[in-house]
């Protein structure tokens, strides 16, 4: 076998496609993105399977009297993966808590949630929310206001849009790195004259850029956030 003489690039790409690395990327993206991203359903399932396997291995090792150092190395690896998984799910649930109404009324965002996350946010019908936060605001403020001002989505009955719903700020800056050479990125910020110019991204170079401009590329997985 010539596995020992793999060119560096292949070796790197091999390493970077293990599930733990993929989880790390998903975690970093989720952490840096202002809005909720698609739930990595397959990846999370695989990771959970692997964690279980690792737990069994560690148990077997410690029962079988394997060298404690080896066991603790396995344990450390396991702990790190566990942390990534928990932190990933935690960041998501906190985003959901924060932008509950915005997510619940936007189908595109709603469909990014996992089954459990959907149950957690409990959407009943598109327009009427029913979760603990809406109930809380309902009871503490809205029910005490005059009739035409009780909506949780609109400032008053004469508002045409939902102007009461907090949304994530997409015009924020993020650090990112592209996986491939990209061209034709439309900048969404800066002086108006500059906006018609298209922006290019080299592979592997760090950029500091407005999230809104690269939103679609993050979603399609071409760009990673850091």
């Amino acid at each position, binding site marked *: 076998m010539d596995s020992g003489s793999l060119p560096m690039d292949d070796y790197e790409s091999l390493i970077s496609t293990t599930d733990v690395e993929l989880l790390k990327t998903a975690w970093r993206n989720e952490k840096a993105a202002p809005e909720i991203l698609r739930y990595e359903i397959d990846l999370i399932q695989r990771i959970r399977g692997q964690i279980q396997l690792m737990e069994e291995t560690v148990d077997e090792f410690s029962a079988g009297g394997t060298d404690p150092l080896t066991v603790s190395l396995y344990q450390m690896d396991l702990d790190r993966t566990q942390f990534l998984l*928990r932190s990933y799910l935690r960041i998501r649930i906190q985003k959901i808590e924060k932008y509950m109404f915005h997510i619940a009324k936007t189908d595109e965002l709603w469909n990014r949630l996992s089954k459990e996350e959907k149950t957690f946010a409990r959407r009943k019908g598109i327009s009427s929310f029913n979760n603990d936060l809406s109930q809380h*605001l309902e009871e503490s403020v809205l029910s005490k206001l005059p009739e035409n001002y009780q909506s949780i989505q609109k400032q008053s009955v004469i508002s045409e849009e939902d102007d009461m719903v907090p949304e994530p700020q997409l015009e924020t800056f993020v650090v990112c790195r592209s996986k491939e050479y990209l061209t034709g990125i439309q900048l969404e910020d800066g002086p108006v004259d500059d906006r018609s110019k298209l922006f290019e991204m080299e592979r592997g170079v760090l950029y500091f850029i407005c999230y809104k401009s690269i939103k679609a590329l993050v979603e399609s997985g071409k760009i990673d956030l850091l």
Partner: protein
Amino acid sequence: MYGRRATQLVKEFASAEKGQLTAFNSDQFEQVIAECSQHHLELQSLIRKMQEEGLDVQTTRNADHYGALIHHLSLVRNKRCLMAYMYNRAEIIRSLLWKIGPVLPLEIEEKLCHLEEEYFKKHSTALKSYMSKLELDLTVDMVPPKDPYIQVRVLDDIGEGIVLSDDKTANFARHSMHFLKRTDAEQFISRGLMEELTG
């Protein structure tokens, strides 16, 4: 001045230390709510007046129309301030759930109004049921692990016979020191019963 009380309410929240709660200002809160009803009454009476004068409420632009508009805008502003106050407080309350856990110490609980306490409880239940569906406890592992084991000192009598994840029991007498799995120790640390010894 219209809207001042509501602004004060929001300012009071904003001037508190980040992530810290101030006591729920129910006096001010109720006053703003009362102000809202007052605005609404005056708004309605102005509109009624216009109707009695036989004017078209939709298109007339006289003093009464602008008067009514001011009341409407003040009401909307008050509503936004009240909602911002509650919404941002709710955000801190949720963060407490992550940082401290489902049981709040008395000095924090005092700062919540009754409805906020309810919300805290309900939210904690919702989160718990989410985690039990996942079969994963998300409240541990709050910081990236450096070492699977950490050295801790017990700050308060926790008691004997506490079962750890490796099925061993431990006696956590006050001031005793232990070498524990991070995941085991974390729950005690977050409740302030143990401290991590570093260096």
